[in-house]
């Protein structure tokens, strides 16, 4: 059972964002970059499958050279190998370009299953896993909270509005992982030490047989802006029961929210 896990190097969710002076970039200041939180579920799932069925877990990322830290995190958790796809423009690749890079990488590595996070925090596109599956011509199931594997048959649970879908698929497949699928392990000290010695393969566009023209963005960015500040609110005063009466009245008559 060989598993590819797609991981992304992202600013953590406590990051405060500012827009840079050009209006086209974010000033992430002192942002702390980490492995995308949803990708931890994907790595964990890959490791559990490997522990049960043997094989190897390979972490793959697209990004700049700093993204190697996220690969090291996956290696420290227990992944066997890592691949860094990095070249000019790769760290600003849009979802389709990212998927083309990852699909090209997947074409060079034997795999039975591809796992990724439900979405990459920050970009919030929730596209790449589905795009890769389509480019590779294999089934895709997204937002998965439960997985059972028998031979090559997968039974998956996926979160939908107000319920859970039970989905059947056959390997090879792409599965995007949602919180609830498992409890990601923390890397052990031994794992962290071992990760430092594991090799990270670096591939550029040419290694992947990619024409840079195929990676051109599908949309042009016109501007980035912060949301408008919310108007100042009112903190009510007085005895609690009177405040509650006033609140319900305000919600009904002034805000017309109930």
């Amino acid at each position, binding site marked *: 059972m060989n598993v590819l896990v797609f991981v992304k190097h992202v600013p953590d969710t406590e990051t405060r964002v500012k827009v840079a002076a050009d209006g086209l970039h974010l000033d992430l200041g002192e942002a702390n970059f980490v492995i995308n939180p949803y990708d931890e579920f994907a790595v964990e799932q890959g490791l559990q499958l490997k522990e049960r069925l043997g094989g190897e877990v390979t972490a793959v990322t697209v990004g700049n050279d700093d993204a190697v830290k996220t690969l090291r995190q996956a290696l420290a958790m227990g992944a066997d190998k890592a691949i860094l796809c990095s070249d000019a423009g790769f760290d600003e690749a849009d979802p389709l370009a990212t998927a083309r890079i990852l699909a090209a990488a997947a074409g060079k590595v034997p795999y039975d299953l591809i796992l990724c996070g439900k979405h990459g925090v920050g970009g919030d596109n929730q596209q790449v896993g589905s795009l890769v599956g389509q480019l590779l011509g294999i089934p895709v199931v997204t937002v998965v909270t439960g997985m059972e594997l028998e031979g090559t048959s997968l039974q998956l649970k996926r979160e939908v509005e107000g319920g859970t879908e039970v989905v059947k698929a056959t390997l090879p497949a792409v599965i995007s992982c949602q919180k609830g699928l498992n409890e990601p392990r923390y890397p052990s000290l031994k794992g962290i030490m071992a990760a430092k010695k594991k090799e990270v393969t670096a591939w550029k566009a040419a290694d992947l047989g990619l024409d840079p023209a195929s990676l051109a963005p599908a949309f*042009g960015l016109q501007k*980035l802006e912060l949301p408008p500040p919310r108007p100042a609110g009112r903190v009510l005063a007085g005895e609690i029961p009177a405040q509650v009466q006033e609140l319900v009245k305000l919600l009904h008559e002034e805000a017309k929210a109930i």
Partner: protein
Amino acid sequence: MNVLVFAEQRDGKLKKAALEAMSVGREIADATGGTAAAVLLGQGVGPLAEALGKAGADKVYVGDDALFASYSDAYGLAVGKAAQAMAANALVFSATAMGKDLAPKVTARLGIGLLSDVTSFTAAGGAVSFQRPIYAGKAFATLVPAAGKPFGVTVRPNVFPVKECPKAGEVVSLDHGVTPGDLKAVVEKILTAQGELLDVAEANIIVSGGRGMKGPENYKILEELAKELGGAVGASRAAVDAGWIDHSHQVGQTGKVVSPGLYIACGISGAIQHLAGMSSSKVIVAINKDPEAPIFKVATYGIVGDLFEVVPLMTQAVKAMKAAG
């Protein structure tokens, strides 16, 4: 631009989000000079075409077939066929669980770009630009499709109004080309969360609890208020990570990003990743013992007090208000 809208139905009922997407599609077609069509997939779904005509579809491509009885990857193939049949320049999907799963499967097949979770757009004089949140709403990006290239968008539910715009709604049987061999990743069944209130992603009122809830047993008081208001129960990451409530209720950057009409935050301090997920709500109520809690900075109305006193009183007051008509 010719615009194709994927009209999501579940259990033979059109989703409200499908009509919202149809209205968006109509407006883009009108502003750029083109036709707007819908594609409708399922079994026995033909009668739903009429509502799409009323919401602005010139044509409705209907794939009424047992092959579409359950959602599967074959939906992507069929929508791609419809896009080719009408020479679509733009595809519009709802940013629902199904739409978010389906849209990239279609756009990858067509080799075109996709913008996720659009919350506003401007269409005028033949050009169109879209705005979407990034970092769960900490910032917004305005983007334009590359000149002359087809593209797709998913539009966030509950954001765009449904506009009556009656058009012919001519029903065309979709030549979908799907065979049983294309049925991959098929939904076998749907387990409905039993006796549960609405999902936070769909609710117009959310009553949400955080660390201040102190334990899982106390969510009952939020459920009672949510029930009285016809809303859903949400939670902060702290409460979900503590195991008090299922993650499907989590609101925030690592949960669901919501924009309801009313968000009532109970015992939630307002960590930045939570605020990102809910601060586009129209009205926010904060109930917290700590007057310094950051949640008060985004609140429309605040009560500094013990949620265990405030919430039950509020449920009673809402009941009384409803009884008084």
